C-alpha cells in the first residue's frame, strides 16, 4: 500500500508556478482594467498626462490614444503567456516611468490626478498611488526574475 514518493510527496516546484500564474492574472488584469478605463475616455487621460507638465500637449494627446492599448495588450500577453517577455518588459518600464513621474510631480508641487484608473482613482492620495504602483512594480520584477530562473526551479 505504499505510494511512490513521486505521486504523493510534496512537490515544491508546483507552488511557485501556481503562485506565478495567479500573479500574472492579477497584474495582467489590473493593467487591462486600467487600459480599458483610459481607452474609454482618452481626452481625460490626455488631460491627466498633461497635468504632469513633462510633455507638451501635442505629445500627451497622442500618447493618450496609444498607451491604453499598449497596457491592454501587455496585460493580455501576461495572462495568455503569448509575447510574454515583451509584455513583461514593457509593463515594467511603464510602471517605473509612472512612479518616477509621480514622485517628480509631487516634488514640484503639482496638483495632479494620476488618471491610472480613470474616475475610480481621482480621489486617491499620493501615498495610495505610490503604494499600488510600487506593488505592481514589485510583482512585475518578481515575474521577470521567475522567468529568468531555470525551468526546473520554477
Amino acid at each position: 500500500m505504499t505510494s511512490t514518493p513521486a505521486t504523493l510527496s510534496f512537490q515544491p516546484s508546483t507552488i511557485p508556478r501556481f503562485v506565478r500564474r495567479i500573479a500574472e492574472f492579477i497584474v495582467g488584469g489590473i493593467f487591462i482594467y486600467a487600459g480599458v478605463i483610459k481607452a474609454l475616455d482618452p481626452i481625460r487621460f490626455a488631460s491627466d498626462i498633461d497635468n504632469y507638465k513633462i510633455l507638451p500637449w501635442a505629445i500627451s494627446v497622442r500618447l493618450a490614444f496609444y498607451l491604453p492599448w499598449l497596457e491592454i495588450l501587455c496585460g493580455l500577453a501576461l495572462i495568455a503567456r503569448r509575447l510574454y517577455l515583451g509584455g513583461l518588459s514593457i509593463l515594467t518600464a511603464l510602471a517605473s516611468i509612472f512612479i518616477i513621474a509621480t514622485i517628480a510631480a509631487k516634488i514640484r508641487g503639482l496638483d495632479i490626478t494620476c488618471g491610472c484608473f480613470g474616475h475610480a482613482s481621482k480621489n486617491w492620495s499620493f501615498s495610495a498611488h505610490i503604494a499600488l504602483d510600487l506593488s505592481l512594480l514589485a510583482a512585475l520584477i518578481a515575474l521577470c526574475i521567475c522567468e529568468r530562473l531555470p525551468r526546473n526551479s520554477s
Partner: protein
Amino acid sequence: MKSSLVRQTLILVALASLPGIGQALYFRDKVSWQSPVPASEMVTVAQARAWGGNAIWVDARPDVEFEREHIPGAVLLNEDRWNELLPRFLATWSPEKRVVVYCSSQSCNASREVARRLRDEAQLKNVFVLQGGWEEWLKKK
C-alpha cells in the same frame, strides 16, 4: 532570449498602434491636438472681469478650498459632487451669460474637466476656462 525579448516588444508596440490610430481617427474632430484648451475657450482674469454681471464664476475646486475662500459670487461645481451641484448651478445660469470655470492654479485640470462636461453633458455654450485659475485671480486682486 534577448532577441526574442526585442522581437516581442516590437510586435506589441506595433500592435498597440493599430487600435490607437483607429481611435485617434475617430476622435480627430473632437480633440484639440495642439493645446489642451483651444485659445478661444481660455479667458484671462482681466477679460472675465470686464464681462461684469454677464459672467458666472464657477469654482471647480474641492469643497474645502471653496469654503476657505473663493471669487465673490462664484458657484461651487466640482466633479466630486457633480450630480448634486449641477442643478444648483443651472438654477443660476441663463443663456446670455458667460461661464468662467477656475481651479487652483495653471497646473490643475479640474477647470478644464468641468468646462468640458458643461459643454458636452449640459450642452452649454460660452463656457471658458480661467487662465492661471485661483492663483492668478489672487495676483490680480
